[in-house]
């Protein structure tokens, strides 16, 4: 009697196993080089992950058209994280175990990247994040590099620009307390700016806040010359239109989250400045080629995230090419030797895997991006 029941359980578990094992048809062939990409491709932040994926796909396509890496084709495998950390961990585990990726270009957001960081260190996975700007991403991780500059660096550069190029003495900061990117920039801006000028207001809001009139009225009473708004387009657009509605005259400054703001908010964004990874008006052949190829492939102008995804894929594949093998240690060693011009500027890595590159400052004028200055790393 007992044994029959036991066998019933056994059969049930076996069926489960077979079903699970059936899913794992991952081949580990060496004829293709598999590169993983992780980012939010559905949901609220879908445009960020999608841009990175498209940039990476374009880079892989160009490399394949030019004969691949070492004669092997490159395949980009992109998984959606939905901006969720649990999903990002699942996606990473799947890329490693099922798909057998050689290296990871990702993840897109800082939170996702930090949640797979510990596992990736354990795997010694060569990892180059195109867009995760959190300061801790590359901390104590010899295998992790990044292609973008960090939040503190960007915020401090914006402060220097406000002081030196705009000659501002008083500045206000209005940031999103729920967003690590926004907070990181705000802190750095405040600390840098207050060394010379005065930060009149340092105000936070929550992600779902839509009404800024009260806080803007409060800020206006202090009469700052510039207002620093580190957030993404959707929120900055709302804040800018309320600044206009209240008829306040302060110069808005922002970070790379404002990239592309002139598309939807041309009239309220007129005259604002923001830091960015590259400028579409950059004359260099590399940049113009990238823009025209991207436009041909996807029918839209690339944003900064697409450019970073594109650059990161190139950097990674060139490192694999130089390493001449799929050995993690060799790839990581070659990654750290990167020293070349890319769409988002000349890139070399310091010993932590941080890029040393310049920041483009862009002004919105006549509804277009105008490159004002390239502020180099100090």
């Amino acid at each position: 009697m007992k044994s029959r029941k036991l066998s019933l359980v056994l059969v049930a578990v076996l069926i489960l196993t077979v079903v699970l094992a059936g899913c794992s048809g991952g081949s580990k062939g060496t004829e293709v080089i598999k590169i993983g990409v992780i980012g939010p491709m559905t949901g609220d932040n879908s445009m960020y992950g999608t841009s990175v994926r498209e940039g990476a796909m374009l880079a892989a396509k160009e490399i394949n058209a030019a004969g691949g890496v070492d004669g092997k084709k490159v395949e980009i495998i992109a998984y959606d994280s939905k901006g969720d950390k649990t999903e990002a961990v699942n996606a990473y585990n799947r890329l490693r175990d099922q798909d057998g990726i050689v290296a990871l270009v990702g993840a897109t957001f800082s939170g996702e990247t930090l949640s797979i960081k510990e596992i990736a260190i354990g795997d010694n996975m060569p990892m180059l994040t195109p867009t995760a700007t959190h300061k801790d991403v590359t901390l104590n991780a010899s295998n992790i590099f990044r292609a973008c500059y960090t939040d503190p660096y960007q915020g401090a550069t914006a402060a220097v620009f406000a002081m030196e190029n705009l000659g501002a003495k008083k500045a206000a900061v209005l940031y999103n307390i729920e967003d690590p990117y926004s907070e990181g920039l705000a802190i750095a801006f405040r600390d840098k700016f207050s060394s010379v000028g005065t930060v009149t207001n340092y105000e936070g809001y929550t992600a779902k806040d839509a009404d800024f009139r009260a806080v803007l009225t409060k800020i206006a009473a202090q009469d700052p010359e510039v207002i620093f708004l580190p957030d993404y387009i959707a929120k900055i657009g709302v804040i800018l239109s309320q600044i206009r509605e209240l008829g306040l005259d302060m110069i808005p400054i922002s970070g790379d989250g404002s990239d592309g703001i002139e598309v939807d908010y041309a009239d309220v964004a007129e005259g604002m400045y923001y830091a960015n990874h590259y400028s579409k008006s950059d004359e260099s052949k590399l940049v113009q080629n990238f823009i025209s190829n991207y436009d041909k492939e996807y029918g839209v102008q690339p944003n900064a995230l697409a450019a970073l995804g594109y650059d990161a894929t190139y950097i990674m594949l060139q490192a694999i090419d130089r390493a001449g093998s799929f050995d993690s240690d060799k790839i990581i060693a070659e990654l750290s030797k990167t020293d070349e011009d890319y769409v988002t500027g000349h890139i070399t890595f310091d010993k932590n895997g941080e890029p040393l590159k310049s920041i483009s400052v862009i002004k919105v004028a006549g509804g277009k991006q105008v490159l004002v200055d390239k502020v180099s790393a100090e």
Partner: protein
Amino acid sequence: MNKNTIKSYLVNFLAVIIIFALMKLLMNIGIINRYYQGIIVFILINIILAASLNLATGFLGQLTLGHAGFMAAGAYVSASTAIMIKANFGWLPNIAILLISLIIAGIISAIVGVAIGIPALRLRGDYLAIITLGFGEVIRVIINNIRFTGGAQGLTGIPRISTFDNVFWITVLIVFILYTLTHSRQGRAIVSIREDEVAAEAVGVKTTRFKVMGFAIAASFAGIGGGLYAHYIAFLDPNTFNFMRSVEILVIVVLGGMGSLTGSIIAAIVLTILPEALRSFADYRLLLYSFLLIIMMIFRPAGLLGTSEFSWKSIYDRYKYRKESIIKREKA
């Protein structure tokens, strides 16, 4: 305890051991790789969350929309406790660090639960829903604004000490506690509140006390679930615990059956694997979930299993009954 109960406990315990041994075996020979292992850990954590929410919503009948808030409280408390222990008493084994952190997380979450529950539970049920919803929003504001949580930057450097083994046994323990609780004298008092609060009060059940107690236990276990999550992901930020998370847990409970722990377990397994299996379906996932909620409420408000529990014994009984009847028929 009569002989039958003991027998059923033993059978279930045996089944759990067999499942555990089999999983370990499959992991060792590599059929369950680390990708599946990760999913299994998330399933187990979801089982804890759903089972605890089931106590509050299914057995007690009080709709809670801030379960992710309790999860957040537990996750942060457990993570910072573990960081502290690791720094000062690094010689302790990982399992000891995990257990101490989880117990503290459970206690703090329970205290938060009581603090929320006392004002809300004195009133009619629907106020609780809205207060817990507000609580879920406010706790994120609080986490963002206090220092030791790392704010929006998130909390890094959390010891990664949740493993399949310890998550599995903690889940078993929690489900066991919830099962015995709901089948005890206190459990019957809790169910009577769900069935008819006024009548329960009239026969002498201290409704507010039992409501607060049930709610606090649910909050406490949610906190432990959050702690296990923190020690598995090793990184926390406030946005992990948004309203969406609370609703996902609620969907598991509703689908499995309000008042059925095994229903919650089955639904947790299905609803954790499903989005993983249907990655391309992601855009429509939440649409499907909400549709499921509405349809379930209209056509089968009791959920898949209703308030009944799945048990090996009942299958066995049915099997025996059928066999006996076959024998009888053959004899005839």
